[in-house]
């Protein structure tokens, strides 16, 4: 089974965000970068599918600067076979421009499955995977929490308000992965060593036209300071009074 997994290098979720000098991006000094957590589900799914099929290849694709090679290597350490770095000094805020670069790379690659994480935890744009599928003319299941593949067809489940939606499509397909799909493996220490020897090709990213620009990045307004209303059961009536009269949410 030939599987491509598109991944992104993002700041660690514990990072304290500081706005950079340009007022439009974060200050990267001291920031630790990791493989996007939702992409871990995608990498794990690819590895499990290749293992189930008994044979195949898992290719990691990312769009980013040279630093993104480290992110590819994290996925290689988990067990993927090789990587492709589509080089772009700055990642545009326009998901469609990125999807076009990815589609150009993936088209004609003969992939049975193309996996993404459903969303990147830096920009929360929630769009590149589905856009890439649409550009490639491939079926796409967004935010899958369960995936079954049999006889060239896919049955997947995704969370919607009020329950789970069951969807079906044929292979080849694009799936964006959500938490709950699987439990990503830790890269074994042997895997970390082996990753050094796996090939990563670098080429220029063929970005599409960029039609979104960041006007500003700022910190959210601080919430007004709250207070402890009281202790134990005795505080209940005071809380209800405040919710009704002061906060007016009751």
């Amino acid at each position, binding site marked *: 089974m030939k599987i491509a997994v598109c991944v992104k290098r993002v700041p660690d979720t*514990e990072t304290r965000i500081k706005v950079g000098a340009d007022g439009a991006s974060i200050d990267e000094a001291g920031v630790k970068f990791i493989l996007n957590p939702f992409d871990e589900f995608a990498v794990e799914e690819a590895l499990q599918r290749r293992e189930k099929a008994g044979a195949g290849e898992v290719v990691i694709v990312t769009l980013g600067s040279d630093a993104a090679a*480290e992110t590819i*290597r*994290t996925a290689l*350490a988990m067990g993927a076979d090789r990587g492709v770095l589509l080089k772009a000094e700055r990642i545009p805020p326009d998901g469609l421009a990125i999807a076009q670069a990815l589609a150009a790379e993936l088209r004609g690659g003969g992939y049975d499955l193309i996996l993404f994480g459903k969303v990147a935890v830096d920009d929360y744009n929630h769009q590149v995977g589905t856009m890439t599928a649409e550009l490639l003319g491939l079926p796409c299941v967004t935010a899958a929490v369960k995936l079954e593949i049999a006889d060239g067809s896919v049955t997947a489940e995704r969370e919607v308000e009020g329950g789970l939606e069951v969807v079906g499509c044929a292979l080849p397909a694009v799936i964006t992965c959500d938490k709950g799909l699987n439990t990503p493996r*830790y*890269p*074994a*220490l*042997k895997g*970390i*060593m082996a*990753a*050094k020897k796996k090939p990563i090709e670098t080429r220029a990213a063929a970005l599409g036209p960029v039609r979104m620009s960041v006007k500003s990045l700022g910190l959210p307004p601080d919430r007004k300071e709250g207070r402890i209303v009281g202790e134990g059961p005795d505080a209940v009536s005071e809380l209800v009074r405040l919710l009704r009269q002061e906060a007016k949410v009751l």
Partner: protein
Amino acid sequence: MASRFEGVDFYDISSLLSEEERAVRDTVRQWVDDKLLPVINEAYIAGRFPKQLIPEMAELGFYGANLPEEYGCAGLNNVAYGLIMQELERGDSGVRSFASVQGALVMYPIYAFGSEEQKKHWLPKLASGELIGCFGLTEPDYGSNPAGMITTAKETSAGWVLNGAKMWITNGSMADVAIVWAKTGALDDVKSIRGFVVPTKTPGFSAKDQKGKLSLRASDTSELVLQNVEVGKDALLPKSGGIKAPLMCLTQARYGISWGALGAAMGCYAEALAYAKQRVMFRKPIAGFQLQQARLAEMLTEITKGQLLCLHLGRLKDLGTMRPQQVSLAKRNNVNVACEVAREARRLLGANGILVEYSAMRHMANLESVYTYEGTHDMHTLILGEDVTGMAAFE
């Protein structure tokens, strides 16, 4: 207190590590947060080693990580190995002790002093966690003076017969195989010490858990008794001879411990700092009071010094120029630092600091064992003294 450990890196030592070394450190760090910490308090209080973690640790390649890939090991360099010990001990000294014994005291002697058949037979199974090992050197009356051991190995036509007792043996009761050091000649003939690979099921071999420990509780510490234990000729580690071989094993373990102890210190410091920032007293977080800041500054300083110490030691080891006395300096310093950091952290935590919910007191108690084992603090003092003056002052 379930937030993730972010490390303590005041001097950006991360930038001195390779990408692989960082990746190794981060994998173990995350595993400790996800898998070890949730079970350690219960294991520590119950006084048992969390055995259920053994297969996962093996699968990730934690055992004998700096031994070659051809024997099923990860083939990492010594800095990466040290980082594994650092992160494991940030979790618990008892769990790190398991990995130290398995890797440095069981797999290493087989690798360094064993025949090719022995290496091929034992190493992959120890790397995979299928077999657990222990290291029998210390005896009830011979701790700091291992050369005085009275366990004997008499040669027979079929092999060897071993008799004696060992004490304070980590993994002793769980082990499938024991590396036992015994005198093949007269009791005053130190050169006659040889190493033997003894399957613990061999008749005459018994192990007993040493109860009543108030330190290293999440670890199996046992006495071994060998009564006419018969082993074949293939049990002998052919390249062993004299006290040098077991001491070389100890050097390996002590190297790992110099990193490990700092891991415990880093964990205690990070916990104390986080606590101080959110614990309010007299209307402000205690982090704002001078005495607590002094504690934190002192801890951070000693940790930072210790980190640079063991990093460079690791580079020397990878270069092949490391001397055992250099390891003594690092083990002695870093374990002492860790003991003090843990104690100060415990005090900063106030009353909360006596609860198992906070790691400081568990680390504090554990580190007393780490101070004493693998060469007591005082022994390493004398090793350094002898090295720089040329005069031995042990007796």
